[in-house]
């Protein structure tokens, strides 16, 4: 846990200036002016404890901390911020929800606010204020945070995951760019393998990367875990087609993907052993920041996930909503802080700090400078718009979040792709696991 001060922020100003972030007096002046006109006035002596997911791009963390420090100075609110790994955010937020103490705000994954709808502060006014001011919310973002007409949290951003590839390898395979349909995409992967420049996508218990591409394959075939009434429909001919397609694709992969976690493809790609994978922008950012990988960074590009037989984008992206607990002693300060984070003067600079790792959920930020600062970033700017909520066509909530966390879809595909089970058995097993959750 750390307590940010104006002094520490000023000391770290150089790093932030490099990303174009408002630093020093300019940031504090904006914050003061905002605090005076904002709809929510922080309670005198307010103190907020904030838990967030651990950053992957250091400059994003710097930008976030700068916002926190400016808010503190402008409103007089004491801010304690600490980070946890993705897996630990939900349990710790749940403990706070159960005990009614410990945290004021929690920033986590997928449908976090839906886990304890009776314990969160309704954010209707904040969502309304921001939505009207910044062109409305993307559909998946709103669904992720809304229950009926109530906003249980605010969808701060989406961590976009797309295809990262080596241009030279794709061209050598006979393609000008990564194809946008499933059959041609498979042909590309076959050609990459033939040229000994293989693709590779995580088939292990990788929370982000494995769920990312496998849901694209599943949903792209118009196959779903549950229907709109939350009836389990995974056992279907469409799922079988998705399984067959994924198996054909996996046969072109670099060996070892069944053991991959979320960091494995980054390592393999940066070491020059992998030429096409699905990931956030962190691979490219790491290559750009390493002077010894200049050539690699120039050869890297990004592409959207291909569209399957369903005929439209059907992607699972990593939503990161924030919530405030209703037992907080400082509800106005909590709302003010969330609104402050998403104001243009902060948010666009924050996106720049994240360097494409975070994607906006408010439509007005589609034209944020980060998406044009480097043409290779542009793909990630579409993540929130192309995404479906974690539930697919079903109801977002704790059951959908559980299904993802329990790797049901991942295990179904992994069982079939590795030959551990036949398609019918793999589907039946997934169906049973889902019925267990949706009972």
């Amino acid at each position, binding site marked *: 846990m750390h307590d940010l001060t104006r002094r520490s922020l000023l000391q770290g100003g150089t790093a932030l200036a490099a990303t174009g972030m408002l630093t020093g007096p300019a940031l504090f002046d904006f914050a003061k002016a905002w605090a005076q006109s904002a709809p929510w006035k922080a309670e005198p002596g307010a103190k907020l404890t904030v838990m967030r997911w651990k950053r992957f791009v250091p400059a994003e963390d710097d930008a976030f901390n700068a916002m926190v420090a400016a808010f503190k100075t402008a409103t007089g609110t004491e801010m304690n911020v600490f980070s946890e790994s993705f897996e630990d955010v939900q349990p710790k937020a749940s403990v706070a929800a159960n005990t009614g103490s410990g945290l004021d705000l929690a920033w986590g994954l997928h449908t976090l606010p839906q886990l*304890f709808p009776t314990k969160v502060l309704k954010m209707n006014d904040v969502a309304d204020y921001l939505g009207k001011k910044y062109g409305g919310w993307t559909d998946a973002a709103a669904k992720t945070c809304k229950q009926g007409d109530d906003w249980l949290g605010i969808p701060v951003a989406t961590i976009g995951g797309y295809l990262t590839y080596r241009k030279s390898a794709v061209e050598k395979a006979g393609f000008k760019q990564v194809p946008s349909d499933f059959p041609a995409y498979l042909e590309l992967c076959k050609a990459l393998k033939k040229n000994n420049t293989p693709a590779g996508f995580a088939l*292990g218990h990788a929370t982000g990367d494995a769920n990312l591409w496998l849901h694209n394959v599943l949903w792209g075939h118009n196959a779903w875990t549950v229907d709109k009434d939350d009836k389990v429909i995974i056992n279907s001919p469409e799922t079988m087609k998705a399984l067959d397609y994924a198996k054909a694709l996996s046969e072109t992969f670099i060996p*070892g993907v*069944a053991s991959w976690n979320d960091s494995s493809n980054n390592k393999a790609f940066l070491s020059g*052993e992998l030429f096409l994978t699905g990931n956030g922008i962190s691979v490219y950012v790491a290559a750009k920041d390493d002077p010894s990988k200049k050539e690699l960074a120039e050869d890297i590009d990004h592409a959207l996930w291909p569209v399957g037989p369903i005929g439209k984008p059907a992607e699972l992206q990593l939503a990161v909503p924030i919530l405030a607990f209703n037992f907080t002693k400082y509800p106005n300060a909590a709302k003010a802080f969330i609104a402050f984070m998403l104001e243009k003067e902060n948010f666009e600079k924050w996106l720049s700090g994240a360097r494409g790792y975070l994607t906006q959920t408010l439509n007005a930020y589609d034209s944020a400078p980060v998406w044009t600062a480097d043409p290779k970033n542009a793909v990630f700017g579409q993540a929130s718009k192309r995404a479906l909520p974690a539930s697919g066509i079903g109801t977002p909530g704790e059951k959908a979040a559980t299904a993802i*966390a329990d790797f049901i879809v991942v295990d179904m595909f992994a069982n079939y792709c590795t030959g*551990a089970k036949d398609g019918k058995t793999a589907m039946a*097993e997934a169906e049973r696991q889902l019925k*267990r959750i949706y009972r």
Partner: protein
Amino acid sequence: MADIALAPRRAKTEIREATTWDQLRHNKNWLGFWFMLPALAFLIFFLAYPLGLGIWLSFTDTRIGRVGHFVGTENYEWLWDDSIFWLSVFNTLLYTFVASAIKFAVGLYLALLLNERMPFKALLRAAVLIPFIVPTVLSALAFWWIFDSQFSIISWSLKHLGVITQNINFLGDTTWARICVIFANIWRGVPFVAITLLAGLQTVQPSLYEAATLDGASRWQMFRFITYPLLTPIIAVVMTFSVLFTFTDFQLIWAMTRGGPVNATHLMATLSYQRAIIAGQLGEGAAISSAMIPFLLAAIMVSWFGLQRRKWQQGESND
């Protein structure tokens, strides 16, 4: 006057019947109870209560974030038909049996070796302990790197020696992955077995070996009829703990494979954590944990009743 006035009052005090409280204060049996009370409270609050709570949770649909309701044996019924659960049971038994057996064999061999006269014996004994003092997660991360599908030092070396042409898919293949996690567990667990058995060996009287030597006994006969019988009680205790530690292992698996590939290394402990904490289903996770209890009780019973048997204690065959 004063004496006269006080005398009846004193007599009245002396004839007062002892109250229950007086008995509890002065009875020696109760005194023993009072001394045991802190230990009893400790056992109740830190051992019995969590165990009881875990078992209770297994009969509820409690989720992280909300209180559950009593659902009877529903969690267990779902587990009964859950192939991943049964796979985790199989993995746990395989992991425990194979790792414990090899740990015992290697540990006993090392203990016998370190009990011999040899140069740098103290240094070697200290070196044997190294795997035990390295934090589990650190050693698991080291093994994760050693067995990495792309960057394994073993694959790298064998490739450079021309032995193999492709990386060995250590953690990506189900059989290899099981072998790797068992190997890592053995590496970590051998020092405990070796050092404890060595301590036991040092309690054996040298005069017994001298007598056996005079009788012309071979080294095998000395081990079979002197060392082994006297070591049996220690072996029983060491192996009980070794089996318990192995059966409930979590860190090594979680850091190395997270139960993968395709759940081939999921133990009951890791599956319980995944279901209860990661997926938020506390009731179901508690049911998986509770399902471990019969196995653990069985392991304890074998050791407990074995130790009670005089003949076994003396290294002879059971009745």
